[in-house]
């Protein structure tokens, strides 16, 4: 079987220019035309489970600090974390709970978690301030299937649901096990953010770069090159399915791995959950959408910087945040059960330790790739069919950068 995903995506097959990875002009366009216009992931509704809970997230490329609150009545809202008095950040930590009020630590202006300005200290010395007009600056914030997104364009007229379009319909209703509990792997990298997107968008590298860590479970006799099992394209978003080696077993010498998985009845050897706890997840129509018998996981890429990955053992996410042309923040979240026994804690330690090694193989590599591309020795990259998402991403970025509005960008990607 020789599929042609690149053709199916309506893309040409020529070399792809490298300039967007290394030019400041492109980076500036990405800020204005993409990050200031697109819907951006902030997290799960479970990150602010109770009334009074809040989190603060940074969107460095836009210089924005975002306060997300869970207000009375259940509303989840987003605000610029900027005081109306003289512009300090109102909230200085990254999360907290049961706060109905925020007091700016500079001069004590006080806001409700609905953004309203409640009190000004020493108010009589001001010159008639209309408190109603001095609340925190609201940001459009919507929830899709428990995922919280914001849009930094105050004039935006595209609702989240329309932005996600057919991708939202495709993924809707996936039951996410342990959505309330995650372990995060965070790193700051000296590379353009798109190298990180690329690093987690193809399987061609797995048997090579990850030859010791996950190569043996993501490639095998029936597919030594770890070919894609499926690819689906939805406006600016897309989904691919990866191969899994059905014959993978730990080697004789992998005694700790065996010990860690001894109590596990799991789908594969990289699993956070027991099989029974992912049954509903695996039964969803869009999990392993091609219903491949040799499936390991799906990579669902929500434009521009969010991966929602689903496997037999559970789900995880990647968020990739540009800081500057050659600096990025990377955050991977694994949603894992709360261990109740030492054996369960041991399994989880092994699971995360292995993933940290895998991810580090990718992360050390993106810095090398950035260096190579920035050297301007080459002006193009040469992509094969299993790298279709990289080619498509470059095409989507270009469409967004050309488009006058978000509506027009979505139209162009349809």
């Amino acid at each position, binding site marked *: 079987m020789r599929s042609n995903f690149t053709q199916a995506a309506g893309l040409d097959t020529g070399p792809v220019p490298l300039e967007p990875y290394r030019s400041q002009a492109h980076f500036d366009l990405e800020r204005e035309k993409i990050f200031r216009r697109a819907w951006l992931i902030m997290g799960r509704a479970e990150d602010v489970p109770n009334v009074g809970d809040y989190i603060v997230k940074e969107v460095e490329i836009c210089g924005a600090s975002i306060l997300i609150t869970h207000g009375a009545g259940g509303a989840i809202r987003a605000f610029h974390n900027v005081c109306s008095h003289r512009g300090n950040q109102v909230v200085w930590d990254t999360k907290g709970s049961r706060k109905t009020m925020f007091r700016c630590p500079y001069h004590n202006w006080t806001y409700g978690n609905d953004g309203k300005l409640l009190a000004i200290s020493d108010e009589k010395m001001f010159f008639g301030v209309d408190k109603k007009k001095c609340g925190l600056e609201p940001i459009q914030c919507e929830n899709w299937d428990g995922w919280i997104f914001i849009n930094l364009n105050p004039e935006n007229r595209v609702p989240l649901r329309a932005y996600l379009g057919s991708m939202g319909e495709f993924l809707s209703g996936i039951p996410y096990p342990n959505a309330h509990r995650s372990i*995060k792997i965070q*790193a700051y990298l000296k590379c353009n953010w798109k190298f990180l997107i690329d690093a987690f968008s193809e399987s061609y590298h797995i048997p090579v770069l990850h030859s010791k860590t996950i190569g043996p479970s993501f490639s095998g006799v029936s597919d030594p090159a770890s070919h894609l099992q499926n690819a689906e394209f939805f406006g600016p978003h897309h989904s691919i399915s990866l191969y899994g080696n059905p014959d993978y077993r730990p080697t004789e010498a992998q005694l700790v791995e065996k010990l860690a998985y001894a109590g596990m009845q799991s789908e594969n050897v990289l699993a956070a959950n027991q099989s029974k706890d992912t049954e509903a997840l695996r039964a969803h129509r869009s999990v392993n959408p091609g219903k491949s018998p040799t499936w390991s996981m799906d990579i669902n890429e929500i434009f521009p910087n969010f991966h929602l990955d689903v496997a037999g053992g559970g789900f995880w996410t990647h968020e990739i945040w540009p800081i500057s042309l050659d600096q990025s923040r990377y955050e991977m979240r694994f949603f894992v059960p709360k261990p109740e*026994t*030492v054996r369960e*804690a*041991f399994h989880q330690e092994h699971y995360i*330790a292995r993933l940290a090694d895998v991810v580090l193989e990718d992360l050390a590599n993106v810095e090398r790739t950035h260096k190579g591309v920035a050297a301007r020795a080459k002006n193009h990259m040469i992509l094969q069919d299993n790298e279709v998402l990289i080619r498509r991403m470059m095409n989507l970025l270009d469409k967004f950068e050309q488009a006058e509005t978000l509506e027009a960008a979505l139209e162009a990607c349809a």
Partner: protein
Amino acid sequence: MRIVATVPPGERPLPAGFEELEPFVTYWAVAGQNERRYQRCDTTFDEIRRFYDAMLPRADAAMKYLANYPLRDMPGPEARLMRLVLSLAQASMAVEIQGAERVPKAPWPDTVRILTEETL
């Protein structure tokens, strides 16, 4: 960064029966996944191997013994034994998977952090 596990005066380092693991407590019985990963990355392959060889044959017995204690509220010696067990998972990455102390050709120290909601 230098992190160590300390034993309060008057406490035994580990529960009775696990004395031969005591030399590993200071370095390997540290609290936190990020800290245990750091320890594994910040030492030599030979040191990791020495710990792995001593810990592996006792891991199952240790987990059986610790099953009698609540995971999040263990007395000092039991908590340190648990952390040694958890460090074995970290050490196994070097011994069973990489065949080296760290991911080959990755920079060290690095900016990777494992951020957990609770510290075991």
